[in-house]
């Protein structure tokens, strides 16, 4: 592995992760397509390298959310039961699925992200006053978070945990299969099933990424799928890129830039779809 190759992997990952960070999403969704497209990295190696960088990036932001007391760690560990189990399923499936299917699934996830970016998230109505029964109560998951202004505690309840768990299982599965944090799948679970306040769901889903990814990354590491010469520069580049992206985040609130990124996601999806059917337009395959 030449120095130039390492430098290219580093810069591509930096750019991909910064792009993701600017949009407030994990960089993994850009890292894998860019590695396969522009660096000719094998998709399985790209996924294994990406899952490591996903852990590295999420740990940094998770710390910040925890300090702001937005993370519900009790709820996180309960949902992690589903995500880690899903990740384990993903590890078993990954070896049996053809690379073309992984490209196809990635395209679907990219399109889903584009659709989510188009439709703005609305604050779900949290029925804190309803009779508290069910899993949320017996596991004592209901909590509160500090208001942005004034710092008063706003209570919220955790609703419909079983449906949330099912969606989280899917999120863990996709995370392991594609090497992404799969916030794309966690957000609908948090919003429509559990009905958490937006800030709480962002913080809690971010907190869960690490443990979920560790379940699959551990297996990939032991199995030898994680190639240090690729995963090293990719992880470093992603961490730097995430830090850069977080700084630019404020600038990307305008409608026009949001639409631009929807376009980028759609283009990546099309390229991944073409790859799934064996057509390569950009770059060469090593």
């Amino acid at each position, binding site marked *: 592995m030449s120095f130039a190759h390492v430098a290219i992997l580093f810069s591509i990952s930096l750019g991909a992760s910064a792009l993701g960070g600017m949009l407030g999403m994990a960089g993994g969704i850009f890292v894998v397509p860019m590695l396969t497209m522009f660096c000719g990295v094998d998709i399985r190696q790209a996924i294994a390298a990406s899952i490591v960088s996903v852990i590295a990036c999420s740990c940094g932001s998770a710390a910040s959310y925890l300090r702001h007391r937005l993370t519900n760690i009790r709820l996180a560990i309960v949902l992690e039961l589903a995500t880690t189990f899903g990740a*384990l399923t993903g590890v078993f499936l990954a070896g049996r699925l053809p690379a073309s299917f992984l490209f196809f699934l990635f395209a679907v996830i990219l399109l889903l992200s584009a659709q989510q970016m188009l439709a703005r998230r609305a604050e779900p109505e949290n029925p804190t006053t309803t009779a508290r029964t069910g899993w949320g109560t017996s596991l*004592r998951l209901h909590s509160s978070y500090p208001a942005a202004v004034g710092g008063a505690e706003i209570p919220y309840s955790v609703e419909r945990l079983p449906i949330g768990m099912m969606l989280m299982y899917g999120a863990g599965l996709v995370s392991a299969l594609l090497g992404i944090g799969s916030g794309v799948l966690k957000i609908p679970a948090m919003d429509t099933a559990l009905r958490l306040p937006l800030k709480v769901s962002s913080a809690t889903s971010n907190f869960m990424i690490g*443990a979920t990814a560790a379940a699959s990354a551990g297996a990939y590491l032991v*199995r030898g799928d994680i190639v240090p010469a690729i995963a090293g520069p990719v992880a470093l580049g992603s961490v730097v890129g995430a830090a850069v992206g977080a700084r630019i985040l404020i600038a990307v609130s305008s409608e026009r830039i949001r639409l631009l990124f929807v376009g980028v996601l759609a283009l990546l999806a099309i390229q991944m779809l073409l790859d799934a059917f064996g057509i390569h337009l950009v770059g060469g395959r090593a």
Partner: protein
Amino acid sequence: MEVVRDTRLERRIAAVLQLGSWLPSGARIVTAGIALFIALPIVRVAMMLFGFLRLGDFRIALVTALVLAIIILGFVAGMHMDVVAG
């Protein structure tokens, strides 16, 4: 003829050289770094397990123990599978 062999010194030098040849090997450092990244969330789950046990919250502690078990199962599963990438 007097034969001098500083066995202990030789062994120490060998150990240092061995260590030295280890350190600059980039791939090994990178692998260690990657392993450290993966270890971080596992340490976090373990911390939560001890924290919940100390609070006497055994229901959530059981859930935490199960999550830890699933992650460890991932490592075990990886050992029994063939390399796919490449």
